[in-house]
């Protein structure tokens, strides 16, 4: 059974439709990037998976109904909403005591080990820590929990580039293994590109694109076309054409690379390039 199975999720807040028939399937051991513009429904989708809100449709996470079985689900799911959700009044030592007290899968020694690599003092209150340190603290706690699914909703928003890089490096090196699954939503696509195994684009509450990173390499190609070959390139039905430094960049889906090489320099598009092309076509 897949780690996450969602079919036809629907949720509206008043007259705003946040999820409009959203489907998602995530298998164990994948790292999925959920990417979409502001207001696309990313947070709503993640909150539904975490049992934080009720929505229509079929949703199973680790074979549980998140809304009805949140307490059980949270034994196997960890969640970082963003940097600001740790209670500001709590002391680091109290936080460790508390999580050790309520979470059966928390390994306190492991968390202490991660914290030892930082400058966070055990006696500090969360409000005294910098934003970056709060993230380190939350990550140390989450990584010390032997969970099967980790959900990250814009986990590095507002952090500087050093902390952002360190955050994803720690996740990959010290946490991730093939028996865990990670779902991460973010705007900062470039930084997590090398981390992901799969990517899903969401727009206006629907899944508009889905691909594994391996398939992106084999399916999609971006070609920098010389002006004299532009007409030939257009004839091959590109997904998108854009002007770049006096030349045209064409994005192709499922066209043979050798054929494209005749037109100009071929490279694999970044997720950001794909995102712009897919969203541009959808709107």
């Amino acid at each position, binding site marked *: 059974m897949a780690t996450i199975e969602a079919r036809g999720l629907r949720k509206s807040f008043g007259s705003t439709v946040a999820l409009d028939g959203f489907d998602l399937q995530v298998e164990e051991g994948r790292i999925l990037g959920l990417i979409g513009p502001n207001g696309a429904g990313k947070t709503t989708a993640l909150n539904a998976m975490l049992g934080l809100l009720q929505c229509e449709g079929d949703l199973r996470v680790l074979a549980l109904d998140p809304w009805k079985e949140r307490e059980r689900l949270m034994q196997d799911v960890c969640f970082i*909403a963003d940097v600001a959700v740790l209670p500001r009044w*709590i002391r680091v030592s109290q936080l460790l005591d508390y999580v050790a*007290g*309520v979470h059966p899968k928390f390994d306190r020694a492991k968390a202490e080990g991660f914290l030892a690599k930082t400058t966070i003092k055990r006696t500090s209150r969360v409000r005294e820590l910098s934003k970056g340190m709060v993230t380190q603290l939350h990550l140390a706690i989450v990584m010390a929990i032997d969970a099967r699914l980790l959900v990250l909703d814009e986990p590095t928003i507002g952090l500087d580039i050093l902390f952002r890089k360190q955050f994803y490096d720690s996740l990959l090196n010290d946490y991730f293994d093939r028996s865990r699954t990670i779902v991460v939503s973010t705007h900062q696509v470039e930084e997590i590109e090398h981390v992901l195994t799969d990517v899903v684009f969401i727009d206006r509450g629907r899944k508009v694109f889905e691909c594994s990173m391996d398939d992106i390499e084999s399916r999609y190609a971006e070609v920098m076309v010389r002006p004299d070959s532009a007409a030939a390139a257009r004839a091959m039905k590109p997904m998108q054409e854009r002007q770049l430094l006096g030349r045209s960049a064409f994005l192709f889906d499922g066209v043979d690379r050798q054929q494209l090489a005749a037109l100009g320099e071929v490279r694999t598009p970044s997720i950001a390039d794909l995102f712009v092309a897919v969203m541009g076509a959808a709107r």
Partner: protein
Amino acid sequence: MNHFYWQVRREIWENRSLYLAPIAACGVFMLGFPFALAKLIATIHNVGQHTSIAMPYDIFAGLQMAVMMMVGAFYCIDALYGERRDRSMLFWKSLPVSDLTSVLAKVAIPIAVLPVLTWLITIAAQLLMLLVSTVALAGNGSHVAMLWNDVSFFQRSLLLLYHLIMVHSLYLAPLYGWLLFVSAWVRRAPFVWATVPLLAIAFVERIAFGTTSFAALVGNRLAGNGMDAIVAHGTFPMDPHTHLTPIRFLTSPELVIGLLVCAIFVAAAMWMRRYRSAI
């Protein structure tokens, strides 16, 4: 049960006023105590002044009760609102603790934890007052005996605990329930929402029917007018020789209906915590 224990601990960590406020009240009272002590030494020769010997202890207990009601009310108003406002609810809900356990722990604070903390702090301070008075009266054995006899510390302590539990937690439970419900419900200005609807109901009743029964209902709870039920009629509740009537109180409709109202509000607060998102 283990989760409940940790939830209660986390509430006490967060709300240090639960024990700091009664301790601060002790500090304030101790400023006035030397004057009371001086008066005691000056007047203890006059037999027949016995009531004034115990008076500072009654005033002190009353002060602690007032402090406790305020701390309890402010705690309840913020208990479920604060975690939504600062978004820490997203962290609490990322852990395998149910809404039921979280909310029950929050109810337990004004109903059980706060009365016990207040009681412990109050009797510790009263014992200190007694010991200081004993030292001050030392050299006159009969006066010391009179002091301990009049204050009758152990009976007084038990009576205080009885009073705190019966009146300040059980009888006031519906009001704490209401405040917790408001705290879980509103998006802003919980203090306004906690008070204005009560005033509005009283006002509308006055206009429409010319009666004041709702205002009297709430007012009587706050003023502890149900005390008639916990002690025999007409006796002072803190008097060590008062006659307690716990059975009558526990079976009185006022108490039973009040507890039911509290249960309804708490169930609604639990439901709200499940559905409400961070603000």
